[in-house]
């Protein structure tokens, strides 16, 4: 197991190297000067100032030199300095990671704690009105755009009935977390509910379920011991994959709710062409994705004793 983890961690290095190369080239060959974009373009520009800024940010050096500097920094954990915020990118990311992580965790919690039971019950009560109703709900959940759902929730729960604040971080208050987490979590909840339902339906047709029933186990025992455990692999894979993409999709919700996370930092840096920050955010999202996938793979072994890593 330990050797497997080390092997997987080592595989991260070429992946990250490859991605940074592509990312660096794409971000740096984009036409348009970051220095011009940093200033109000409606004002008449000062060409000397533009030159000064480009020098300060190292944009006057050739691309290969810049990449080499970037990689050298990366090797010692230095992600560079933000053009506009004058702060170290690693510090900026450190400030923003917890809000995003909290939001993603809350959304996944909503998705799992509602989605899994919903899908399970739908499958057990397969074909009943309850099944139809929950699946209609699930399809609607997947289809609703997060942005619009966020606005609807704001309108009803903040403007009409003033339960939650409309936006902001509110010093980490749970009241501020609920609306963005719901807006983000509903879609994933629906997806997890549908996946769980399909997995349970599949497992229910297996021979070992018939065997379990024929040896006299109660329905509760069959469901909890055999069905649930066997569906968890598929459900866990879905959760793992979704968690990675969830970090990426916080972009929209963070912007809408003025949530101070990685998503809003990424969007701002892209618009302002703050290249070091954009690179840092993308790198962080990729790392999260890789780590979550590794953790999911390791969890397989815990859930299913047949899986062993060597």
């Amino acid at each position: 197991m330990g050797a497997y983890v080390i092997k997987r961690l080592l595989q991260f290095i070429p992946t990250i190297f490859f991605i940074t190369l592509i990312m660096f080239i794409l971000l740096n060959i984009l036409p348009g000067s970051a220095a011009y974009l940093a200033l109000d373009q409606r004002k008449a520009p000062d060409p000397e100032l533009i030159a000064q800024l480009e020098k300060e940010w190292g944009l006057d050096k050739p691309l290969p030199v810049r990449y080499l500097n970037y990689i050298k920094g990366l090797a010692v954990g230095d992600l560079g300095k933000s053009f506009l915020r004058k702060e170290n990118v690693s510090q900026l990311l450190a400030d923003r990671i917890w809000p995003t992580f909290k939001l993603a965790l809350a959304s996944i919690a909503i998705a799992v704690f509602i989605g899994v039971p919903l899908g399970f019950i739908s499958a057990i009560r397969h074909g009943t009105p309850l099944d139809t109703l929950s699946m209609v709900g699930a399809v609607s959940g997947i289809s609703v755009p997060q942005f619009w759902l966020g606005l609807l929730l704001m309108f009803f729960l903040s403007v009409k009935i003033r339960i939650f604040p409309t936006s902001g971080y509110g010093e980490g208050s749970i009241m501020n977390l609920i609306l963005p987490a719901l807006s983000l979590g509903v879609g994933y909840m629906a997806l997890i509910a549908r996946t769980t339902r399909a997995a349970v339906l599949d497992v229910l047709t297996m021979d070992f379920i018939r065997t379990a029933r024929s040896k006299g186990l109660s329905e509760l025992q069959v469901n909890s011991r055999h069905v649930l455990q066997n569906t968890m692999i598929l459900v866990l894979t879905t959760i793992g994959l979704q968690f990675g993409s969830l970090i990426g999709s916080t972009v929209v919700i963070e912007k809408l709710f003025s949530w101070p996370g990685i998503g809003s930092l990424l969007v701002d840096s892209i618009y302002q062409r703050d290249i070091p920050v954009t690179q840092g955010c993308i790198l962080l999202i990729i790392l999260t994705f890789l780590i979550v996938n590794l953790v999911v793979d390791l969890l397989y072994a815990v859930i299913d004793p047949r899986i062993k890593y060597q």
Partner: protein
Amino acid sequence: MKKNLLILLSLFLISLFAYTNAWAVREGGSFVFCAPYGGDVFSLDMHRTGNTQDYIVGLNIHRSLYKWDASQNKPVPELATEIKTTDGGQTYIVTLRKNIKFHNGRGMTADDIIYSYNRIMNPKTASSATAYVKPIKGAADVQAGKATAISGLSKIDDYTLKIEMENPTELGYLLYKIETAIIPKEEVVSKGERFGSAPVGCGPFKFSKWVKGSEIVLEKFDDYYEEGRPYLDKLVYKIMPEGSARDMSFRAKELDANLLGGAQYQVYQKDPELSGNMVEVAEMYTRLVGFNMNYKPFTDKRVRQAFNYALNSELIIKKLLKNKAFRATSFLPSTSPAFNPKLAPYEYNVEKAKKLMAEAGYADGFDLEIIGTNSQSYGVRVIEAIIPFLKKINIRVKPQQLEGGMLSQRLIKGDYQAFIWSLESGPDPLVALNRFDSKTLPSAGNYVAYSNPEFDKYLDLARKTGNQTQKLVYLTKADAFLHADAPLWFFNYNKAIIAYQPWVHGIKPVAIEMMLQDFTNLWLDETSPRANVK
């Protein structure tokens, strides 16, 4: 007798009303405003940021030598009791107020002004405010690394300063900018790069807290030099780039004031509860289509004029921009001191446009690519709306959407036929029109590569005269000349609107940029849900 008594009684009531109104000004409370542009606030070190969002917040922490007076629509001395010039703007003697303190408790002196301006020009600072300090004698040498201190700045005593200019200049139009804020050296030195996230200024509010990406909190500065100001105890800026989210917050009464977009403006106007509490102004930004003067058809003035005549600008403003704009006459906006109200905008006259096109030898028209961004008010969306109008005079338009950075690069290189954009057109009309001086390069903002000796002549006369009234006369003429010569399609001036809650008193129509609201004199009455929040 009875009549006299009645008059006396009414006079008494009026004065009583006026008195109670004055008395009604209430101290205390927390005001929640928004920072609505683009994204986050980047830095509160005003010398080192080019982000308007940062100025919105910084304006209430920092102070510059002058400030913008929204009611007079011009800059007025702020940190000085008197700023005198005896030679038409070549030399200024500044007498500073003696009771100004920085938020760290130290009193401000002439040394702080000299330090701040030198810091702006220092190439290591790479300050976005260089353009405003550069007209001071010797400032350009500091920027070029040829000198270490600006020679035109000399301290007479702790509270008196002499400023010598390279050429006669109106100092107020340069040094009212919050980018030229006066800051304490010791704080900059001790904090280094952190100064931008924990600033110290001498404005009415001191910095308290910053949740990056979400909100900034400022607190009343008790030692502010204006007696009894500010009224507010606390000022909160919520970073809210999404118009619809701001609208929700405003309706939920979480925001005390909100900058409106086109869609909300229409809805708010129709709502009797909201429509009464709105302030609007023609901002000093002119939205236009610039013609590349090197593109063959545009070398003929008649073609450029025909373009202006062919477009029903009023209709486009009404239907597409939902009336959230003022029709432009020429380049200078209606809030500019050199604006000529007698000059009429180009009328919508297709026949005249066709005639001009025929006279210029373009009866069959030509193909035209217009580049622009995705801006809702001055982007490709507008170009799509003008296609059918221009088709009538056989100009076949192809819009091309670009990202902001790409657009500016192509404008500087002159690599385009026409572009749509918004350009700063104030507050100093001379600086605004200088963009079109033949000596101004495209890289310095003369994107259309405009060059006309007659236009330059008016600008030169305006520069040389020491008389302010005469200067405005020349600039009005220059603007009228530009109007007739039509290197641009003069589309509109932005109409900026702030909606505020009924308990808010003191939102002003700030023409330089509506969001640059100085909250020194703003107060909240007791109906505010945050009337007693400290």
